[in-house]
């Protein structure tokens, strides 16, 4: 049984928060994340995605996500650290697809090691 700890993004200061509502000409956004044995925490990705909307980013047409892992070991810390963040990313991807009504082209790249992590978490993009 996996126990996922709450991992709500709380930016310690505004400076560390990538607020994309302030980028009116943005057309393409690409976020990459390479996990190590401990997983790492990518809350900045869904936090930034959550600021993308059709009203504030009218020219947005491409979002690329690239997840890879340096290890195939599914350590509990790795799953715990990645779990809620990956679910949040998947939720934001679904929201953006609905809000932009298919006008945004999503590309999600993963390697086989990270696929195993997604499978363990039952997260799909």
């Amino acid at each position, binding site marked *: 049984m996996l126990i996922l700890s709450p991992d709500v993004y709380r930016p310690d*200061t505004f400076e560390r928060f990538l607020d*994309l509502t302030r980028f009116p000409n943005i057309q*393409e956004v690409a*976020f990459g*994340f*390479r*996990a190590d044995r401990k997983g*790492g*925490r990518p809350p900045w990705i869904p936090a930034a995605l959550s600021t993308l909307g059709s009203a504030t980013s009218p020219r947005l047409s491409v979002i690329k996500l690239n997840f890879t892992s*340096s290890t195939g070991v599914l350590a509990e810390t790795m799953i715990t650290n990645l779990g809620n963040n990956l679910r949040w990313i998947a939720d934001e991807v679904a929201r953006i697809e609905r809000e932009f009504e298919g006008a945004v082209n999503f590309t999600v790249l993963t390697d086989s090691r990270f696929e195993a992590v997604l499978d363990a978490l039952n997260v799909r993009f």
Partner: protein
Amino acid sequence: MREESPAHHVKDLRLHIGEHTRIPEKILECIPWFTDVDMISLLGYAVVPLGYGGFSPLWEPLFWKLPMSVRSLTVNTSAVTLLQVRDIMAQLPNLDDLVLSRLAEVGGRKLPGIGTVLKGKFGGRLMLSGECVCEDVVNMLLEIPSGLRFVELDIYCTHDPLPSSAVRLARACRKTLVKLSHTVDYHRKPYSFSYSG
């Protein structure tokens, strides 16, 4: 000899300076011949670290006669410091694209105000990776009096997931930015190359 040189046809000039402890003066003398060059790259890993007797040739006056036609500068060498990069950039009023992947590190030395002399256009692509995603580099760019107008920003972090400096940089270009790429590599540790400068 200069009139016979085909150098004015060259658009992409790559200097592999890292492997040498001294750049021959003949080469330095030729650099101004490249009157129409678009891109200059400084490449190579320093065999003799700066501060231990290597790379003083970069400071020789001849080197600084860079063509004003340069629109793109790439630095991927541990043989030059940020201050030297600034001095190179200061000669390039048409600079649009900047790629900083590796620099010589001068431990603990802050460089406030070094960007105030820069006059490039800075309206193309900016790519920072590894330890170049740091306060000194970002502060230098934010200090440019004419501001930043990059349309493409590519940041590759290896030690801090979302450095506040990277966010400040993105916000500085928010009106012009078209493509934003941010990658964090938790596995790749930043290379350790430091010395007392």
